[in-house]
């Protein structure tokens, strides 16, 4: 593959995040290395008691109380993440041309929280539409979380969300990379957010599907690959990256977390809910081709596995196929700590692994007491972090309902 020019190479120069076990990258990474879960008991309207991952970031750090009140939880999470990412990037934001910035935020769904709340409200008034909120439309338009970022930071370049189920975070990154390469923008805020824990619908639907996690100890509820796994822990979260061209990052002497070496997206076209191992394998291979890498070149595969019976085994089947000869590729999972942060999942999980480029440690997948034989795979890092010395590449899987797959590959930036 012809080497890319610096103006076509896209790098991560800032990270802003909120996860159930940390509100910045250092805190979050420490939690992942110390085995700290973010899952807690939770109660939601109509559904009742369950478990969830909740975020406690200060949403008024980068926006006024009024903006928080007027906007959505997803918008506030996105604005917090962008504020943190800007601060982390060292950009001179005040003088940066705001019309050359794009905002690309992945969402699993949007509008359900507001609609459920409003229906609940109007029920108190016998469903009289005179009591319906004028906030309904601006809060539920699909671009809302990305649009709220533009309002809070004065961005006048393009903004939209990427609706891609649980592959949305990676879809956000991919969109950012593509728009930078096309020259549409000079800086991208790319990532994903989720406010889904504030709807009862998502809990009730996973429960109806037999795919909602339960456990006496909340911290042990999210247990991908364990033989006793019983489903998903729904979580809140957000993660936004500052992406820019390597040429621009070099010019301003930016700190570089890593380079987006490649990506792949495809569709299963087989089932509304059940994933498809063959298509997942095709998607991973597509990303490898795009990056000009072989499976043996990947140091860490961060799995999507959500702790459902079928899903975990299917993903492992795909990985066994692609990485059959990759003896030095380590496999881990981040949902075992934070649950499933939906639209934020892919980006948060990637973020949790980025520090491996510097510390050479692979964070584990926790809560594997008895590994399911169907989930056995070489080099699965279980329960304790593993020091592997050098990590130069991370492949991040994200798969979503109705059959959408998105894979990103990030490489350590080691200069020229």
């Amino acid at each position: 593959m012809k080497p890319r020019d610096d103006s076509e190479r896209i790098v991560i120069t800032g990270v802003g995040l909120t996860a159930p076990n940390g509100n910045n990258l250092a805190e979050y990474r420490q939690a992942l290395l110390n085995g700290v879960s973010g899952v807690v008991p939770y109660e939601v309207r109509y559904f009742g008691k369950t478990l969830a991952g909740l975020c406690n970031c200060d949403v008024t750090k980068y926006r006024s109380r009024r903006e928080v009140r007027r906007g959505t939880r997803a918008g506030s999470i996105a604005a917090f993440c962008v504020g943190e990412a800007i601060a982390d990037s060292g950009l001179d934001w005040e003088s940066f041309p705001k019309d050359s910035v794009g905002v690309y935020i992945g969402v699993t769904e949007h509008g359900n929280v507001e609609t459920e709340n409003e229906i609940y409200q109007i029920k108190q008034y016998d469903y009289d539409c005179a009591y319906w909120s004028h906030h309904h439309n601006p809060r539920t338009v699909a671009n809302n979380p990305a649009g709220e970022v533009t309002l809070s930071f004065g961005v006048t370049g393009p903004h939209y969300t990427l609706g891609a189920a649980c592959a949305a975070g990676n879809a956000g990154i991919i969109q950012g990379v593509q728009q930078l390469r096309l020259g549409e923008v000079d800086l991208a805020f790319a990532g994903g957010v989720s406010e889904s824990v504030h709807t009862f619908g998502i809990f009730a639907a996973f429960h109806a599907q037999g795919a909602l996690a339960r456990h006496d100890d909340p911290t042990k509820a999210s247990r991908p690959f364990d033989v006793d796994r019983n489903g998903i822990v729904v979580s809140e979260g957000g993660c936004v990256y500052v992406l820019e061209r390597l040429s621009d990052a070099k010019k301003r002497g930016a700190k570089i977390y890593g380079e987006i070496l490649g990506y792949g997206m495809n569709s299963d076209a087989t089932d509304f809910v059940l994933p498809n191992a063959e298509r997942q394998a095709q998607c991973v291979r597509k990303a490898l081709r795009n990056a000009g890498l072989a499976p043996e070149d990947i140091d860490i595969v961060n799995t999507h596995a959500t702790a459902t019976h079928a899903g975990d085994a299917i993903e492992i089947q795909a990985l066994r196929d692609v990485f059959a000869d990759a003896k030095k590729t380590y496999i881990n999972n981040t949902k075992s700590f934070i649950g499933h942060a939906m639209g934020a999942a892919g980006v948060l999980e990637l973020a949790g692994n980025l520090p491996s480029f510097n510390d050479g440690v692979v964070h584990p997948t926790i809560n594997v007491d008895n590994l399911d034989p169907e989930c056995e795979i070489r080099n699965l890092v279980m329960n304790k972090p593993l020091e592997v010395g050098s990590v130069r590449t991370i492949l991040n899987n994200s798969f979503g309902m109705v059959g959408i797959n998105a894979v990103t590959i990030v490489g350590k930036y080691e200069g020229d």
Partner: protein
Amino acid sequence: MAVTVEEIKKSIIDILLGFDDTIDPESIKEDVPFREQLELDSMDMLDIVLALRQRYRLPIHESDYVHLQTMKSTVEYLLPLLNKAE
């Protein structure tokens, strides 16, 4: 029992504090439009209308929004309506 001017004022202040809990109720001037003294915009004004509707279960028509600009005009508008409803 009749609704008093003070009760209506308190309701309005509660609504405004719900928007911004840093507002000093003592500082609200009776004759100055809320939008000018409290930096409210059109969406906030609609929030006030919705909150009043919900609180008093009162239909407030769009043509009457003009009466909800200041503390004084809002009280003058609501007082007869609420006491009529009683």
